[in-house]
């Protein structure tokens, strides 16, 4: 059973995004070949074909939300990684892992980002603002005692 891990990062910088991919998306490939910009727009103003160009743009224009996914080509964890660019200038990093190993990956991403703000849940669409993340984070902390 696959679960979602989310971790919070308040530095929306391309270097961190790049580092994250080097650490966690070693054998992953992009899930899409074209990226409409802005995200989920009915009439996109721009189509990116290079994901790194898109991420650079998102790190410049920090209030543009976007979620980008990479899937693992090999059947090893993390099966899927994703980066959520929020509309309030933050980033959430996501990992799709087996629930049996969730604690290992949770600790690993916490160490990588140097933060305690990370939680896991059953498959759940990503939050798009900091408040939503922390609301889920606190619910998770409360439910840890269940």
């Amino acid at each position, binding site marked *: *059973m696959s679960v979602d891990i989310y971790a919070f990062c308040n530095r929306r910088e391309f270097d961190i995004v790049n580092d994250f991919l080097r650490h966690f998306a070693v054998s992953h490939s992009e899930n899409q070949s074209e990226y*409409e910009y802005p995200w989920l727009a009915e009439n996109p103003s721009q189509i990116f074909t290079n994901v790194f160009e898109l991420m650079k743009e998102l790190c410049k224009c920090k209030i543009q939300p976007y979620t980008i996914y990479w899937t693992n080509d090999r059947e090893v964890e993390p099966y899927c990684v994703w980066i959520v660019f929020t509309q309030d200038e933050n980033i959430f990093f996501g990992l799709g892992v087996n629930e049996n190993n969730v604690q290992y990956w949770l600790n690993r991403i916490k160490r990588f980002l140097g933060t305690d703000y990370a939680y896991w*849940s*059953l*498959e759940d669409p990503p939050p798009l603002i900091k408040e939503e993340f922390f609301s889920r984070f606190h619910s998770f902390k409360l439910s840890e005692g269940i």
Partner: protein
Amino acid sequence: MSSGSYIRSIHPLHFLTSKRKSATTHIGMAILLAVLATLSLSWPQEALTQSYKSNAANDSWMRQQQDQQRQQMHQQQQAKQRELIRQQQQKFSNDNKQKVIRDQQQKAANDNKQSETARQKARSQGATYQGTNKPTSIVISNGIARMARPLTAGEIQRGFTGKVTADGRALIKFQNRIFTVPASRVSGLSARLAADKQRKIRWTAQLQEGVNKKIKAIATATTLPATKRLSGPKGPDCEPKDSPKCRESGEESQLQDKQKSQKSELLVQIPYLAIGHPTPWDRMTKEEKKAFQHSYSRHGKELGLPSWKGANADELRQKFNTVVKHIRDNGKHSYSYQLDKGEKVKVNYFTASMNGRSYYYYETLSGRFISAGLMRD
């Protein structure tokens, strides 16, 4: 008898008197006798004096002993008296306390009677009874709060928490403590409980059957195998609302009847049959689009679906729904507890094997899709 013969007969030196008769001897003897007499008489006096002194000391010691005994007895008597006084005081205090409690209870009962009378009077006059300030009336016994008087109707009405225990007692909050009273004492509660019970009975008996029929009707339109649906003329996806379109073919109807009997038991438990992401892309809210893109991006590849493309989102949605529906329709059903939005919830869980691999499908008990994908150990 003269003193001379007495001396001779008893004194050990009496021979001297018989042998020497001279005056000198007599004088000397007299002196000697006088000295001896003095000596012999003086000895018992000293002994008596000493004995007297000794007796006096003894008397003094005795007196001291007696004094001590008297003092001890006096002290013991005083202690006894004090103990008696203390016991009497304690008894009096207990009696007093009991009396005070009795008085309080009586007063509370009187107050109740008075307030009830006043309320009745007010009711008869058509006025609203405001009540009076009542004493606390809570007695703490062994750490447990008990009411020294029954709660008044007003207190019950005001403090009713809306909760009723399984044994039919209403929970009342009074002065920051919870008390239970028979539900019949809460105005209108008995009627409400009876109505609820009746409503439940009515629901079980009448409505459930109707709902089951509706569910089965919808289910028959959506429980065709994915392969059949894909080869059909109406496309891979079929919304529950479009069910008449799905019933055009007689062959399909026969299949539906067969599957209806197999699935009916399960489907009764899952009234909401929105499998996967049922809303068309152009009618989705931003949240729904986000949720669908997340599901698709997370599992599309392992479900054998093409890469994500925003321009083809609705087509991808239909394909995704077809595959996950196939898992659900062919899967073995069980229940599981999973963390959903920070809460541990009971969910429907289906597992199905396809091409030698195992797939899962999760949904809430109300039928909201959670996840579907490849099972990896």
